[in-house]
Structures are given as C-alpha cells and as structure tokens.
C-alpha cells in the first residue's frame, strides 16, 4: 500500500516540476494530479499525457521476481533493504509465460528493469528473438564475469554475449531415504553406477521396505537428458537440438524403462501445476515415503523431505553414471534478464551483484530455513573457494560433491525449441516406456520427426 502512495507522490512531484518549467498548463497539471490520486478517474487524460512515460524517467530501481524465488529464498528482502527506494515486484509469469514482457517490448517500454527468473534453455532464446532483453556485457563488472564457473557462463551466453546473469544453480543429482534403504539392508553409501542404483532399488522393493524402489521426473530435461549426459554430454546436433536418436540417448531411454519397472505406476503422468510441469507424481511418491531412490534437481528431494517423519533421513549424492560413462549430468541456472527498455541499468548491475553474492541467501539455500530448503547453489568460483578454505559448520557434504561434478556437467543447449523439443517428443518416446513400441530407436525416430515437423512450420 505504501509503495503505491510513494509512486503517486513521485508522479505529483514530477508534474509540479513540469508546471513550474512551463511545460504544461495549470489545467493539465490539475487533471494529471487527479489521475494519479484517483486511478481511473481521468482515464483519457492519463492516456493522452502518458502516466507510463512520466514514471519511467525517474522511477526507482524496479526488479521483478518469479514468485517461487521469493518464496524459496527468504533473505532477498534483506538485500533489497540495502537499496533504498527499490520497488521489488512479483512478475506476471505464472506457468512460465512471458507474454506481458513481449507485449511491453513491442510498445518499446518496460514496467521493470530486470527479471529474476529466467532459465536460459527455457526462455532466453525467445526473450532475445522478441527483443525483450539485451546483453549484460556493458554493465557487468569484469571480476564478476571472470568469477563465473565457465560452464555456467557458457550456458548464459549466446553469440558471445551474456544474456543472462546467473543466480540460482540447479543440478540433477540423486537423493535417497535412508529410513527405507536401511530397512532394506542397504548401506548409506551412494550407488555410483546405474547398475548399482537398479540393484539397490530392487532390494528396496524385494525387502518390502517401501512399495517402490526408485523414481524420476518424466519430463525429458529432468530425466532423459541428464541420464544421457551421464553417459556422454556431447549429444547435441549441429543445429543445437538434443540428438534423440544418438546411441547415448537410446541407452538412457532403456535405463528409464528399467527404473520404471521398480517405480510407481503413475510415474509418467503430468504434474498438477504449471501446465503439468510441476507438482509431479515422483515428488508426491518421495514425499509420501513410498520410494527409496530419486534422481532430480536437489531442490526436489529437499523440498519433499520436509514432509517426512524425520527429514534427516534424506541423503544426497551426484547422479549415478554408466559404467565407463562420462559421469556428467544436466544443470541449469535461473538468473536475471536485463530488459532492453528498462531503466537504471548501472544500478541494476549493482543490485544483481549484491543479490547473487549475498552470503545469507546461500547459507539459507544450502542449510535450509524454517520456511524452505531450496538446495540451490551459487554460480561463482570464489564462493566455493572460500568455503573450501574454511568450511562453514552448516555446510552439508553434498555441496562439495556437486561442485566437483559441475566440471563435467553440461547445460541443455540454448535453442528456441530447447525446452519444447522435450515436450513435443515425450509422448513418442513414452510409447517405448509403456511397451507400445518395442524398438527404442523407432520411438526416438518418431520424436525427431515430430520436432522437425514443428520446426518446419515456423
């Protein structure tokens, strides 16, 4: 409420200045002030004289966040407090939609200065194509740029320009419920290979410790791609698409089918929020303590373990690898996009730097707070180096494991179909998983055809 009043005051001051300078007459001044005070009272007048443009000239620093980031990271307001007058908002991007940003860019304007919530392979290509965002290069300090983990910097770079300032790192790894696995007589050491993983999962089911042995998230970028990367991360075509018909991808698909035999029957079903993408069945099964092993980004097992009788029974480790495989995985960052038509660009860079280096945010993320346990990691080398030098007492062991795996991990290549290729393809590779198509290669061939058909349309 206060925030809005401030905005109105700001507007009024602006118009008073214009009146004194003789740019507008007294009548316009009065009507404009009325509009600012009464919202819709002077609709037409506002249109004529442009509330939006007046605001943009001297508006405060205006970041906008994807809701979940604010929910998961309760220390963000403390960073905001270092920037007096900041107007932090929640972005209208429910279900990962960027319509509003694009519509504003088409009018050559932007309500906000920076969007915190962009995932490169999901929407960065679209944001660039629609001319919504611009590169950070002129504004980001060189020491920050050099501090980024190289694979993360590459993920956020297109044509040599940095379009995303990375913030929260998610890595696909493994979690297990030691209450269940111990009951099945399994040790607390992580299975290193997929064969061990499958054997352990089978032991869980056979011993009756839990009804299901292992689970994964059926969305391709969370299971097919990371499992493929664990064999070999170089599975992208020259066009930048995932190579579905590569031997590595086929191998991963066959692995998925083996895991499914030890998993809950609803594993392939759509989730219950964000267009089926979140609130997925694997999460519920893990939260309900009905499954022993789980591969997904760490945030998922951490968030689900809060429902357990003893959340301390959660253990985390890197994703298993194929015997003789590269042992890589998939990572992505959720970061900040600089609006081309935004304002305060130098100030924004200052703000994002403070945000992404804030020690409290990282401690909360890794050690957890009363309200959440995101388990998301920082994108900078210097932060890990400082932790290595003097390990904080709250530091769990999985962070070091993940950091070391990050040198092999690879992001999904940026492409306008980066995310959509997996959405389009899922029903086709699932024909193999469901047993409707006995040949995995034939199923994957259909995936490629479907993706190509959609690309050709454009």
């Amino acid at each position, binding site marked *: 409420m206060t925030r809005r009043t401030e905005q109105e005051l700001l507007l009024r001051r602006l118009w008073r200045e214009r009146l004194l300078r003789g740019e507008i007459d007294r009548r316009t001044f009065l009507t404009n002030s009325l509009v600012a005070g009464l919202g819709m009272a002077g609709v037409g007048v506002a249109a004529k004289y442009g509330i939006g443009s007046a605001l943009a000239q001297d508006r405060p620093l205006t970041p906008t966040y994807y809701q979940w980031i604010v929910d998961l990271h309760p220390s963000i307001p403390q960073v905001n407090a270092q920037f007096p007058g900041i107007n932090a908002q929640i972005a209208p991007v429910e*279900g990962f*939609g960027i*319509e509003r940003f*694009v519509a504003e860019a*088409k009018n050559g304007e932007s309500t906000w200065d920076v969007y915190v919530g962009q995932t490169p392979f999901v929407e960065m290509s*679209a944001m660039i*194509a*629609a*001319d919504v965002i611009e590169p950070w290069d002129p504004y980001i300090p060189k020491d920050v740029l050099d501090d980024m983990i190289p694979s993360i910097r590459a993920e956020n770079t297109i044509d040599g320009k940095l379009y995303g300032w990375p913030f929260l790192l998610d890595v696909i790894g493994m979690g297990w419920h030691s209450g269940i696995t111990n009951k099945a007589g399994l040790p607390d050491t992580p299975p290193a290979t997929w064969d061990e993983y499958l054997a352990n999962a089978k032991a869980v089911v056979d011993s009756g410790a839990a*009804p299901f042995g292992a689970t994964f998230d059926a969305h391709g970028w969370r299971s097919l791609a990371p499992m493929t990367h664990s064999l070999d991360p170089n599975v992208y075509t020259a066009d930048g698409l995932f190579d579905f018909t590569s031997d590595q991808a086929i191998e991963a698909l066959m692995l998925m089918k083996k895991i499914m035999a030890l998993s*809950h*029957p*609803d594993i392939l*079903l*759509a*989730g*219950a*929020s964000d*267009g*089926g*993408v979140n*609130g997925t*069945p694997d999460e*519920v*099964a893990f939260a*309900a303590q*009905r499954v022993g092993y789980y591969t997904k980004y760490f945030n998922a097992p951490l968030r689900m373990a809060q429902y357990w009788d003893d959340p301390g029974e959660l253990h985390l480790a890197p994703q298993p690898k194929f015997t003789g495989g590269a042992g890589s995985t998939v990572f992505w960052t959720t970061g900040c996009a600089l609006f081309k038509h935004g304002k305060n660009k130098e100030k924004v860079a200052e703000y994002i730097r403070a945000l992404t280096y804030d020690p409290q945010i990282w401690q909360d993320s890794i050690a957890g707070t009363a309200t959440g346990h995101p388990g998301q990691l920082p994108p900078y080398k210097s932060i890990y180096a400082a932790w290595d030098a003097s390990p904080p007492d709250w530091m769990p062991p999985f962070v070091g494991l993940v950091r070391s795996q990050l040198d092999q991990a690879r992001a999904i290549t940026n492409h*306008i*179909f980066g995310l*959509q290729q997996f*959405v*389009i393809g*899922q*029903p086709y590779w*699932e024909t193999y998983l469901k047993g409707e198509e006995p040949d995995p290669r034939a199923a994957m061939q259909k995936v490629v055809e479907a993706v190509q058909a*959609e*690309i050709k*349309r*454009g």
Partner: protein
Amino acid sequence: MAQALTSRWPRARDGISPWLFLVPAVAFFVGYQVYPIFRVVWISFTDYQFLTNEPARWVGLDNYAVALNDPLMWVSLWRAFLFTMMFLPGTIILPLLLAILIDRVTSPRLATVYRVILLIPAVIPSTLVFVLWKWMYNYQVGPINHILVEVLGLFTVHNAPQWLGGTSLTLPSIAIMEIWWGLGYHTIFFLAGLAAIPKELPEAARLDGANEWQIFWHVTRHGLQPIMMILIVLRFGTSMAVIDEYLIFGGFNRDSPTYTWTIYMYDQAFKLGMWRQGFAAAIGMIGAVVMMFFVAILLYIFRRRG
C-alpha cells in the same frame, strides 16, 4: 425526467430511445469483445508470429488449409466433444433434480441451510477448486485412492486408478470435478426458474389427476425453458472450450486426452517456436465454427419445442 421520457415513448419503436438502454452494454461489448474478435479473425489470415517484430503478412486461407489437413486438429476437436458429452448431461440433470426436491422443502429454515450449502462451491475461486481436486484424485495419497486401496481393498498400490495427468480417466475425472463445482450454482439457477412458476399451475394439474412426471413435463419443464436453454447453451460453450483445467491437469503432452483444440491453440500461440499466432488463430476459428454449428442446432431444437 419521467415526463420528458414519456413524451418520447410513442416513437420508441423506431427511434433512438431503446438504444439509450443498450448503450452501456454495447459500449463495453464493443471495447473489450468486438475488438479482440476482429483481431483474431484478421490474424488468422496472416502469418503473424508474436516473437518477431516483422509485420504480419496476409496469407489468405493458408493457415486454415494447414490446420484442416492436420490430424491433431480433428483429434483435439473430438476430445473436446467427448468431454462435453461427459459433462453436459450431468451438469444439467443433477441440479434440475436437486432443485425440484429443494423447491418442495417447506421449512424455511431447512431451505435456507440447503441454499447456503449449495452456494459454498461457488465462492471458491477456480484455482482453489483445482487444488482441492488434485488432492482428492492424487494417486499416492489422495483420499479417493486411499479408500479404494486401504479401506475397501479393491485395488493395490500397483493397480489403483490413475485419475488425473493424461490417462483415459482424466476427462471423466475433470467432468466430475466440474459437475461438483457447478452443482449448487446450477441448482440455484433452477430454483430461481421454479420460483417464477406460479404455484397454482402444478396444483391445478395435480387436481386434474396428473402424476408427478406429467406435471414436470407439461408445467415445470415449460417454465424452466429459458433457464435451461441459457444453461445448456452457456455450458456447451464453456465445456467445448475448457482450457485452464486441461493446462493444469494434462499439460502439453499431445497424447493426453486433455490436449484439445484449445490447448493446441494455446500451445501454438504461446509456447512453440516463434509463437505462431496466425496459425493458432486459425485453429481457434475452426473450433469456433464447429461450436457455433452445434449451438445453432441446439437453438433450433429449443425453438421448435418452445
């Protein structure tokens, strides 16, 4: 004021006075409905892509030709029709039955209690209704499967019904959810309709020896005609064009029965590639024409009997 208007009355039939009454409605309608409609019609004849700044080019009927030759177009229309067939009868007949029963409750206190309960689902915003039923239908921990598996022992954790998320049960499950949501609120519609029927009419028929069914068919049904027609026409439209429920419970998996023409349109307009809104608009227009065809039939049926 009244006198000034009275003097206009004789000319009302062919004058502008009636339009004074229509102005508020038409103004809003033109501003926020006609403009988007014209826009969608125009876009459907172009190659407009939302993510580019290139101007849209006129491509005539190309989008329509592509869409009509696309098997997904027809499959997705058929799915929407299937859902409508599951949803529409239940959402008309059950509330009608309930309304007739409640209308006869003579105790004012009981009638009040019933009416309040009926309206409870109507005050729940759609997002919360979806949350509720996603809990109800949950495979692992939802109360429905808990009762089926743990209490009644009809299924095991390996073969319990998979309600939501793109199975063959998903459309019926959503239909049940929607019928639950609309049950009370449609009953109120019918109660309002029943209240408009003079009580003497069914009484007179009863004295003439008509049985309950005859009274319903000859007296009640006739009185409920306008409400019924509005409900059927309205609900036919909403059920053919359901979108939020499908987005939430089915996602964008093209094999899912929830991937109907509306999702196909949304997918093309806001998800795929450069957001081909020209093509998406053509998909939508085809869906609209199909719907209007059926509505014309519905209206024709009602006209004849009424």
